[in-house]
């Protein structure tokens, strides 16, 4: 197993694992939320960038739906709910919320 160094300190395996979990969770959720987003009738570019902007807590709007006002006012209700969820997910760390969704958490 190769040694990973950061700022001249060894990065332990559990750190690396947590990191990779976060990475995959982030990208997975970006993709997963874009699907229901486009199902609400939002065009592809607006849907992808809406999830991107809310998951990263960026708040920057790109896409045809935002071009008119620069706000999310033209998004349908369902899309607004998904964006709200994505913002909470992105802010509080994904795992904390995903843990609650796991059945194992409730069985304990």
């Amino acid at each position: 197993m190769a040694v990973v160094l950061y700022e001249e300190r060894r990065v332990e395996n559990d750190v690396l694992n947590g990191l990779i979990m976060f990475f995959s969770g982030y990208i997975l959720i970006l993709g997963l939320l874009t699907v229901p987003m486009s199902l609400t009738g939002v065009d592809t570019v607006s849907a992808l960038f809406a999830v991107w902007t809310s998951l990263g807590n960026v708040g920057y709007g790109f896409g045809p739906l935002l071009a008119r006002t620069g706000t999310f006012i033209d998004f349908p209700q369902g899309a607004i709910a998904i964006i709200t969820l994505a913002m909470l997910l992105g802010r509080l760390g994904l795992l904390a919320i995903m843990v609650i969704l796991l059945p194992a958490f409730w069985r304990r």
Partner: protein
Amino acid sequence: MTVGIWAVLSLFGALPFWLGEPNLRFSAAYFEAVSGATTTGATVIFGLDDLPAGMNLWRGMLNWLGGIGIAFIAMIFLPLMRVYGMQFFRTEGFDTFGKALPRARDIARVYVLLTALCIYAYGLIGMSALDAVVNGAATIATGGFSPSDISFQKYFGAGGYVGTVFMLLGSLPYVRYLQLVRGDARLLWHDEQACAYLRWLGGAVVLVAVWHHFHSGMPWEPAFREAMFNLTSIMSSTGFFSDSFPAWGGFMLIVAFVPGMVGACSGSSAAGLRVFRVQVALVALRAHLA
């Protein structure tokens, strides 16, 4: 627990939007409050300039409180929890560990000082008192709620440069400021994360500015100013925008996607994957390929 706090606080934060002037539907009001408390800065209110001053002040406060809340959590609680690789920060720079309260007070001091400086600077470039306070709170929180529909366009010119500086200040690791105050400036300049953050951001700005200069014939100075302000706003997860930048499209959109994913430094009020994680992942990747 933190999940509960944010969800419930946002519920409380949504009440004014729901009952008050903008007369939003409940889902929209909750969206606005979550957007504020998570320092996202996306809005569903059009006609911000005509809102009562109190409502814009409330939006600024939500941003500001959300920002300081996440700074506390990122610096005090997350390293304790064994998740996301944040335990790496447990030893580094956390010499006062176990003394959560004095640390929280230090962070709060830095945060308040930065906000005051930012508001003052905005006042100097000619913002009205309300605009300076709301924009200042939203800048340091890397929130991005602006009291105007056209966001920073209103102050363009000097506002672009001042805004960029303070967005950057709000998205660097706060621990370094504490060390700076204690007289150790070297640690900030030698912070690998902060250096990589500025390097990557600079790279993206140059790419987009040069492309736009040749693509649309915009002169160098405004092209650079626009690219710098807007890309900083994206990478620091703030969300202010200015002028035609969102409509530049094409190459810019593809370049902007990456900084938005990466986000800013761990240990600040910003969000995203964080520079630290991307750096470690790259190092790990290289180590495995070699």
